[in-house]
């Protein structure tokens, strides 16, 4: 499988009123064609910023360095016009709250036709037919009724399906899903996850699935990247990550996820997520790490391949510049 998306040494700073927030601290990740890549992390780890960077939708106070290679081309070097051709067509995104991604003043019909005709050369009738087709494919049994509705007339699950339909309308190669099921009930979430998997099998696109829910990652993703405070700390195939977590943060995270199958003893990590205005030196995790040594305070560990396809950024496993 080829690499679809390759992020190299991405650093992002935000100039804010209170100082410079060092939001991304040199991240590296690769998404292959046709795979579902899960990006996991807690609040402030930078996963949503990563998504925004891929689409070049960062605020004006952002300073960016590094490369974002999509099909071999660096997206950071493209002009705004070139990016507009990519957004929604080659790379699509669905968000957490479909209520705010859909305009409450317009019917679904208008919004979908808008999106479809933007990226494809179709007449209005053809676009409508395409819209109906897509709505059926995402599991909505009565497309005509949905097209005639306003967003608030549909349930959360239905709105999210509409969003997925719109995102897939131009056959993107990469679908970015930013916490798409966090706001949904758990039974509806299952439907949406199954839908995403089925659509991926049918159309062959890759998915960058951003979430904080390790259970969802276990069920859906082929490979997982774990983020902490602006760094990628571990990347591995899903089964390998859960069975053999290397990074202390990953281990900590897995030990605090409650499991409905039994009363699990939760051993929480001490401390809390650091401020990005003044992050810890060296490895950003060292203040909370039981294994931290002197090197950890001084040098940031690099992401190295410790075992086949299993990457980790931690001095316990090498990761020095030597």
């Amino acid at each position: 499988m080829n690499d679809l998306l390759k992020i190299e040494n991405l650093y992002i700073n935000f100039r804010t009123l209170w100082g410079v927030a060092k939001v991304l601290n040199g991240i590296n990740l690769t998404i292959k064609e046709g795979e579902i890549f899960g990006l996991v992390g807690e609040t402030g780890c930078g996963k949503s910023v990563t998504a925004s960077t891929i689409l070049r939708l960062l605020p004006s106070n952002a300073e960016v360095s590094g490369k974002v290679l999509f099909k071999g081309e660096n997206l950071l070097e493209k002009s705004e016009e070139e990016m507009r051709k990519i957004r929604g067509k080659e790379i699509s995104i669905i968000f957490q709250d479909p209520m705010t991604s859909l305009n409450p003043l317009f019917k679904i019909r208008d919004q979908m036709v808008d999106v479809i005709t933007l990226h494809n050369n179709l007449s209005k009738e053809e676009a409508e037919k395409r819209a109906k087709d897509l709505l059926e494919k995402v599991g909505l049994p009565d497309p005509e009724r949905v097209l005639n509705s306003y967003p608030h007339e549909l349930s959360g699950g239905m709105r999210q399906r509409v969003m997925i339909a719109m995102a897939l309308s131009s056959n993107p190669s990469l679908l970015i899903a930013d916490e798409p099921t966090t706001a949904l009930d758990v039974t509806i979430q299952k439907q949406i996850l199954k839908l995403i998997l089925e659509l991926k099998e049918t159309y062959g696109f890759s998915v960058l699935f951003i979430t904080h829910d390790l259970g969802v990652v276990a069920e859906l993703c082929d490979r997982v990247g774990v983020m902490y405070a602006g760094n990628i700390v571990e990347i591995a195939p899903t089964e390998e990550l859960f069975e053999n977590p290397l990074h202390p943060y990953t281990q900590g995270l897995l030990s605090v996820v409650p499991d409905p199958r039994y009363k699990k003893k939760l051993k929480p990590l001490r401390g809390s997520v650091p401020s990005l205005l003044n992050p810890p030196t060296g490895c950003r995790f060292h203040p909370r790490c039981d294994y931290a040594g002197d090197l950890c305070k001084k040098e940031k560990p690099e992401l190295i391949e410790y075992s086949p396809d299993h990457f980790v950024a931690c001095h316990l496993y090498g990761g020095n510049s030597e």
Partner: protein
Amino acid sequence: MIRVEHLKKYFPIKHGIIRKKTMWLKAVDDVSFEIQKGETFGLVGESGSGKSTLGRTILRLYEPTSGKIYFGDVEITSLTKAELKKMRPKMQMIYQDPYSSLNPRLTVFDIIAEPLKEHGYKNPKERVLELLEAVGLSEEHAKKYPDELSGGQCQRIAIARALALNPEFIVLDEPTSALDVSVQAQVLNLLETLQKELELTYLFISHDLGVVRYLANRVGVMYLGKLVEMGNIDQVFETPKHPYTKMLLDSIPIPDPKLRSLRLQKTVLRGEIPSPLNPPAGCRFNTRCPYAKEICKKEEPQLVEVEKNHFVMCHFAEEM
């Protein structure tokens, strides 16, 4: 300690401009159960289940439409406002969003001191510091404002406030849903420790079954205002009898990738959750139930005890 009998909470929704019709939102529709002293009763359900409304109604933050609530020997539902005020210190509540449950214009000290001052403490400083320590914070947090603190810290303050007057019963409405998973673990551990030390009784409302499994002794499952299954946590989670409970348990993402191919293959619950304004006739779950028969569409099932202390509301409870 808490006994709820045939509790109903209906909200009137005014409808229409010219001919004003009143529709009733049956948030809680005839619910009866008990909570033993010192235990944690988990209440689970999805949106529209009525679990949050039930929690608030038990504390009489909403006035019940009908039914009775007993706190120990006292029937809370028949108390006057003044008598209720005296009971208030014994029953407290903790909310989902840590930031909006604290007044952003007050310091942490004032927030925790409020219940103390309200019920007669002239000099609350010592008690406030005591409470801060009990939840794992320190004196330096007392001068701060909520927006200067993290979500986990704010939730601890909410807990400190709830503990101020030595309550016996606490309703926790999704207390960790808005927190990161590592912070959630810290708060859950704190809640567990406090329960043991102070002999508290919890009503723990959540949609996250993993979290409920961690804290609860018994659990009740709600769907559209009805309590469809209730029992020991191990009983209900390992041998669920109600079709909804089964589907719910099947839908939760389990953090174990080895089970993946099995789980995604399992029947996905079809359909959307109906609106509580217009619940289906007969058994509320019949529109989505894979086992629904004719009787389910016409008649509402009763709560049946299928094994010791394990109750199910289904026409075919025995066969499940």
